[in-house]
């Protein structure tokens, strides 16, 4: 550590370097000063060292567990168990009245009058043995394979497998006893209180009204009096979810085009939900909740949330709705709206494209904007165009107002961004394996805009080629162009399902426009301050080549040398990464171009999973002749 003295006029502000109470103007002035004043930069480094030291020393070896038993027993668990949650606080009142209405008919809380897909059956008596068997199930136990649950209309469902289990219940795969071909997912809530019952029932009603090919259908909501459990009978969608599929991908991430194709039906479903009156907010959009049925249909948005959310330690996972990384900040405090799903959707896209789960919203929300731990997707995968990165980032804004207004708007932007060029599909082009498709193809894809709804059931029956091709894609059987897949999904159904011959994009005709990006110099020189060691060392960026918003060149600093790749935005933000130590670590630089051409910013070292290793620095460079 150094013995520098700070400039007296800055000393006070240096001590307040967290800028908790510095205005953005003061902060800017401080940054500018530090960039040019060695003494103050050194003092700042010392301060930051002190703080980092203190923080690292004052950590409990045994983490504090909040004694939840001291708080009133929470209705925490039940919130997570529900399929979709209501968006409006207003409905609270309606629910109370529902509860009263239902008081007299505890056995059949709610059941559709008539449903075409699941004809009501004449009630049949359960064999005594089955009843007895169920009687022995204790209050909190999960049901066993072979147990039978009977709905008030007489339908009987044999438990085949436990799909997921949580603190408040479970989700089972069940078979209709009278028709063994019919399988359903049966969602269970154990020992619900009045409020939960009403909520569950109400949601059942809401969901029952819905009909969309990308949403599982809800058939019944009923209560088993003896067990004091609630059930929701719904479509069982068989297939891997996106989280599982992603693990199969090269580098565990999806190409852009395939991501768009996979999500297209989900976009459609979310739009459908949000168009309801009042709008329905899903609140748990994430890769694990998107299932790609292998039997000829597009992706389906489900929610088996309780299975996942309750495996983990409750004290570390108390977001009441949603999952860390995908849940929007407002989900930590209530007051969600359709833009909450936009956040989850964009976070899903983020994970699909990068293989990295975004940092959770509350961590992001509690940092100042300049310290947002959310790394732009193009920083993690340099081949992703800046525009795409920015659309995703905007959709994941902490403040609802900063996000796009609607899912549709987000989707349009995403399609519009990668240069305004058209893709042409030449059917006679040679085939191309998905792995060999250059990442440059990002720029050449223009997806058809959001697909308008088609008659849902019709589309479902007809099937869409996507999953078939996806299956081929996943198993890398033959040469299937995923571009073909992507285009086919949105377009009209193909004439025949043998359309596997691959297609590649033709060379697009580029449009010449005035570059909105600031032009970087060819070389920069300056210093980087390692905040861990407090050492300031020279930093050089040389041989810089810029093409629109993309930059690359050679990095030299911190005793390391290597190529860097990155982006520069129209607003003067600079991001680039350097892979070091044989690819086991990445140095991620973020900076801003200042008036006069200097670039000032921060550096974080990232492990292969994109997590910060704790090494960080502050750097500034100026154009070097």
């Amino acid at each position, binding site marked *: *550590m150094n013995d520098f003295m700070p400039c007296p006029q800055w*000393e*006070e502000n*240096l*001590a*307040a370097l*967290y800028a*908790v*109470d510095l*205005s953005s103007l003061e902060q800017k002035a401080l940054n500018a000063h530090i960039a040019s004043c060695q003494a103050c930069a050194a003092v700042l480094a*010392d*301060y930051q*060292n*002190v703080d980092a*030291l*203190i*923080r*690292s*020393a*004052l*950590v*409990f*070896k*045994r983490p*504090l567990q*909040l*004694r*939840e038993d*001291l*708080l*009133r*027993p*929470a*209705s*925490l668990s039940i*919130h997570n168990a529900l399929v979709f949650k209501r968006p409006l606080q207003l409905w609270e009142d309606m629910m109370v009245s529902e509860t009263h209405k239902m008081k007299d008919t505890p056995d059949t809380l709610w059941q559709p009058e008539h449903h075409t897909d699941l004809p009501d059956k004449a009630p049949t008596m359960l064999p005594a043995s089955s009843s007895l068997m169920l009687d022995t199930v204790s209050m909190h136990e999960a049901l066993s394979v072979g147990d039978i649950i009977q709905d008030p209309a007489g339908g009987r469902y044999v438990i085949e497998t436990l799909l997921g289990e949580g603190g408040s219940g479970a989700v089972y795969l069940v078979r209709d006893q009278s028709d063994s071909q019919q399988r359903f997912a049966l969602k269970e809530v154990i020992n619900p209180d009045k409020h939960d019952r009403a909520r569950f029932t109400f949601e059942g009603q809401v969901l029952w009204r819905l009909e969309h090919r990308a949403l599982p259908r809800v058939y019944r909501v009923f209560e088993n009096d003896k067990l004091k459990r609630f059930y929701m009978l719904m479509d069982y969608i068989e297939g891997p979810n996106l989280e599982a599929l992603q693990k199969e991908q090269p580098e565990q991430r999806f190409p852009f085009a395939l991501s768009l194709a996979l999500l297209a039906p989900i976009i459609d479903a979310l739009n459908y939900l949000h168009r309801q009156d009042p709008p329905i907010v899903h609140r748990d959009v994430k890769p694990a909740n998107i299932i790609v049925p292998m039997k000829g249909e597009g992706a389906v948005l489900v929610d088996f949330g309780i299975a996942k959310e309750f495996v983990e330690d409750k*004290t*570390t996972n*108390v*977001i*009441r709705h949603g999952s860390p990384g995908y849940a929007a*900040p*407002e989900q*930590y*405090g*209530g*007051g969600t709206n359709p833009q909450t799903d936009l956040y989850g959707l964009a976070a899903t896209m983020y994970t699909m494209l990068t293989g990295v789960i975004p940092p959770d919203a*509350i961590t992001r*929300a*509690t940092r*100042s904007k300049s310290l947002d731990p959310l790394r732009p997707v193009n920083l993690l995968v340099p081949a992703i165009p800046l525009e795409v990165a920015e659309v995703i980032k905007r959709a994941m804004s*902490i*403040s*609802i107002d900063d996000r796009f207004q609607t899912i549709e708007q987000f989707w349009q932007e995403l399609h519009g961004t990668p240069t305004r060029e058209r893709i042409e599909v030449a059917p006679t082009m040679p085939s191309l394996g998905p792995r060999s498709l250059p990442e440059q193809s990002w720029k050449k894809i223009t997806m058809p805009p959001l697909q308008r709804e088609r008659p849902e059931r019709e589309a479902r029956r007809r099937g869409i080629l996507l999953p078939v091709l996806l299956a081929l894609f996943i198993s890398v059987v033959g040469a299937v162009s995923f571009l073909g897949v992507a285009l086919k999904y949105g377009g009209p159904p193909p004439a025949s399902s043998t359309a596997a011959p691959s297609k590649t994009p033709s060379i697009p005709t580029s449009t010449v426009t005035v570059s909105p990006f600031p032009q970087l110099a060819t070389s920069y020189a300056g210093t980087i301050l*390692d905040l*861990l*060691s*407090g050492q300031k060392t020279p930093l050089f960026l040389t041989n810089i080549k810029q093409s629109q918003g993309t930059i690359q060149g050679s990095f030299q600093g911190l*005793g390391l040398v290597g190529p860097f790749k990155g982006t520069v935005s129209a607003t003067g933000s600079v991001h680039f990464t350097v892979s070091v130590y044989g690819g086991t670590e990445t140095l991620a630089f973020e900076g801003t171009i200042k008036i006069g051409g200097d670039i000032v910013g921060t550096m974080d070292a990232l492990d292969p999973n994109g997590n910060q290793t704790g*090494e960080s620095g502050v750097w500034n460079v100026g154009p070097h002749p």
Partner: protein
Amino acid sequence: MLRSEDNSTATVQARLVELAQARDSAAFTTLYLLHTTGICGYLLGLVGNEEDAHDLAQQAFLQAWQKLSGLHDVARFTPWLYAIARNLAHDHSRRKKGASWSSWEHLEESQADVSEPGPEDQVAQAELVRLALTTLPPKLRDCLLLQVEGKLSRREIAEVTGLGEKSVSVYLSGARKAFLQAYQRLEHEQDVPGRRNADQ
């Protein structure tokens, strides 16, 4: 820990506090998650040993839950919570003999580890930091911990400690200098390889 200027975040916390005041324990648990690292670090820095800090943190959150209805301005939750923790730490040290805020016995016991090499370095370093903190005058240490661990603004620190905002600013830079000197002196005395990455 939530920035007053960051409207959306402050709003989230304010809403959580309102919910918690209406006895929504889930909302309170979220508040607890938001502040647990800060409160625990603050208390650990004040009392110097983990066991006591653990109990105090537990008590602080419990008191906060019990007294939450008495908090009139939900926007003041953060300083209010730290004031609770601070008072508990004060009472705790008053009960302890010597009226020092720190448990020296504990620190002395653990110095046996200090010279051992390898992964213990970090443990030794942590002890050194705690030791260095104990050498600071209480006011300086308090301000420093509130800023570093609690990420409180100067105004909030003033509110918690009852000091003037100007004094807080002075104490903050003074505290870092004093800490640094104490730490470097201790490091020199102990000859501990304190900062692992410093020489890379």
